[in-house]
């Protein structure tokens, strides 16, 4: 009752003829009107905001002028080819049974399978790979099973793939259509004629699909990565092509093809092989493509300053690097005693400078790689994820591996040809014996990961 108050619904039930019997308003909980209590309880036992069932309609009786009876009567169906008579309950109104076909007969649809004559077979349809008998069987099955080729392939007496069956069926039908047509133009619009079945394409397509289906999550991620790279390469290639760059380096083509090979149809073996190199090639091919498009745009300029050209090439080479990495490259250059912008930018000097920058980028990437691998390694050994090396657990570990330390930034000595490398490290762990000296605080900002340990 309270709920009805809140909802603003009328407290007394709508008058229903059946409710004429004065029922004592038993309990305020008796909400359902016109439907049984149990059914009402299914809705949660409370009246819906908008009554979905029109309560007044529920116990409506049929119009009293009609006399309805139910009778057990025979019937036939036009869908049947025999004259089988079956029986069912029929709603008879005023003694008149319903007329018309069996109501489900309209659903008996089938496919128009073209049947050829023997003569036509001899003339148009012979094929070295198919006997007439087989073709006949195929067509029978097609008709019987409404072109459900999976089933047909299953029931076909000799072993044939679904694609082969389809190919045969469609090419025969097509040939018949064309042969029977008074003029070619008339059938040109027929789907069978317009778009012939392509066996090889279909086989390939299904193979590709099954490959994609059977990919592991890991592979899926790799593929997504490679696709993104390929897209970038394609875009920069468009730019290069627009600028008429003739000598796009071969590695980028190789990279692109291996990327496509990894994603598209291919042997199950090759994708996994290609994944790893493609993933590593992909970043460098995008850089190469950037370089190529930069060269192309420079060429278009007709005249430019070499310092400008160097700037552009440096930008292209660092296109895949973040701002932080670029800053680190510059820091490294300074540490090496090299001018950030060459003082004498001749062709040779600029080339060397560019190569040096690229090498430094490689160096930084390798450093990062090594750090990750070491972090990985330590997390494996700890047996727990996300366990950073340098926690107390590690220092107490008895059997530990001897690993070399990789500094975050490297200070180089200025003396050419004589490398003086200062290393920086922070260590935890008892009784360390190390030969490498610790250096004064360098340019790095992050806390160091623990790397080496006792022998």
């Amino acid at each position: 009752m309270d709920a009805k108050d809140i909802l603003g619904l009328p407290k007394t039930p709508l008058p229903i003829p059946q409710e004429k019997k004065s029922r004592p308003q038993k309990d305020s909980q008796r909400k359902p009107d016109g439907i049984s209590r149990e059914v009402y309880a299914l809705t949660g036992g409370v009246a819906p905001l908008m009554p979905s069932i029109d309560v007044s309609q529920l116990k409506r009786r049929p119009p009293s002028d009609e006399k309805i009876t139910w009778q057990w009567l025979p019937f036939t169906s036009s869908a049947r080819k025999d004259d089988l008579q079956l029986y069912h309950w029929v709603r008879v109104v005023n003694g008149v049974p319903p007329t018309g076909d069996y109501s489900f007969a309209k659903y008996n649809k089938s496919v128009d399978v073209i049947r050829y004559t023997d003569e036509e077979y001899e003339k148009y349809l012979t094929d070295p790979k198919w006997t007439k008998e087989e073709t006949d069987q195929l067509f029978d099955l097609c008709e019987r099973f409404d072109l459900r080729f999976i089933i047909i392939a299953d029931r076909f007496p000799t072993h044939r793939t679904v694609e082969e069956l389809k190919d045969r069926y469609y090419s025969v039908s097509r040939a018949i259509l064309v042969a029977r047509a008074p003029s070619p133009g008339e059938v040109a619009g027929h789907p069978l004629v317009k778009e012939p079945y392509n066996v090889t394409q279909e086989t390939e397509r299904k193979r590709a699909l099954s490959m994609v289906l059977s990919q592991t999550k890991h592979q899926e991620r790799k593929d997504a990565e490679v696709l993104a790279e390929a897209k970038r390469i394609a875009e920069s290639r468009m730019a290069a092509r627009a600028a008429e760059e003739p000598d796009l380096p071969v590695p980028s083509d190789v990279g692109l093809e291996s990327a496509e090979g990894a994603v598209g149809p291919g042997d199950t073996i090759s994708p996994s092989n290609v994944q790893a190199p493609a993933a590593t090639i992909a970043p460098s091919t995008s850089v190469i493509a950037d370089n190529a498009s930069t060269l192309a745009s420079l060429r278009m300029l007709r005249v430019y300053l070499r310092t400008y050209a160097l700037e552009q090439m440096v930008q292209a080479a660092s296109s895949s690097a973040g701002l932080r990495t670029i800053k680190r490259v510059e820091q490294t250059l300074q540490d090496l005693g090299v001018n950030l912008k060459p003082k004498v930018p001749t062709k040779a000097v600029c080339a060397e400078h560019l190569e040096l920058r690229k090498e430094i980028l490689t160096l930084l990437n390798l450093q990062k790689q090594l750090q990750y691998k070491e972090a990985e390694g330590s997390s494996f050994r700890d047996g727990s994820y996300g366990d950073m090396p340098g926690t107390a657990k590690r220092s107490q570990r008895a059997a530990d591996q001897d690993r070399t330390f990789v500094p975050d930034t490297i200070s180089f000595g200025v003396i050419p040809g004589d490398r003086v490398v200062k290393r920086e490290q922070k260590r935890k762990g008892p009784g360390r014996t190390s030969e490498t000296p610790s250096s004064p605080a360098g340019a790095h900002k992050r806390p160091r990961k623990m790397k080496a340990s006792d022998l």
Partner: protein
Amino acid sequence: MVDTSLSKKKDPDQPEISLPTLKSQRTKMGKSEDSEKKIKDVEISVPIVYGNAAFWLGKKASEYQSHKWTVYVRGATNEDLSVVVKRAVFQLHSSFNNPTRVVESAPFELSESGWGEFEIAITLFFHNDVCEKPLNLYHHLKLYPEDESGPMSTKKPVVVESYDEVVFTEPSESFLARVQNHPAVTFPRLPAGVTLPPPVSTEDESKKKRGDTKDHPLSQWFLNFSEADELLQLAAARQQVQAHIAKLRRQISLTDGQNQQFKPL
């Protein structure tokens, strides 16, 4: 010295004003079809140095004229740039009278007096057979020495120079032919099968004004730019980096091997 065996095509947009600085008589060269032909995959570069020298005027300095300065563009080895450069336009600060100064001949320089440092935009226009597009250089005029506490001298100028190279891509045959032996230009190696017509000789030397800066009054202050030092530096740096890369690669494969044993089950 200027190679007088070179000739110039008649330049229609060059005004035929006889200024004392205007030097060469233009001979009309028969237009051949080849003159517009561009050589692909070839670039030709002209090393230049541009900058300024500024003298403090000392006693004669006034509030608005404390320095006398010259901004210039010269060949890196002090050769005559007019073989490629038709004119140079120096865009000065708007507080100067006629801030757009055009210099029609080598040496491409401009002298002024003032007190302020500002950016000067230098636009180089090239001869028609060289390049139709002009090139912009930007130089920040420096009057005051780096070391602010040091004494200012009227004898020793403050000099700031920048080295750069002007690169022409796909140069025309006629351009290449014309500058074949000119010392101001770094001539490229021509691809196989490309030959150039021999340069045509012209008027005598004496009529031409010297455009090179070898004996320029400021030449004693010019800086030397040698690529050798920088190349050496770069080579050494690369060596260091390469060695480090090799080392890291070894470490990575080592770690990989170690990690293999401990992969989680």
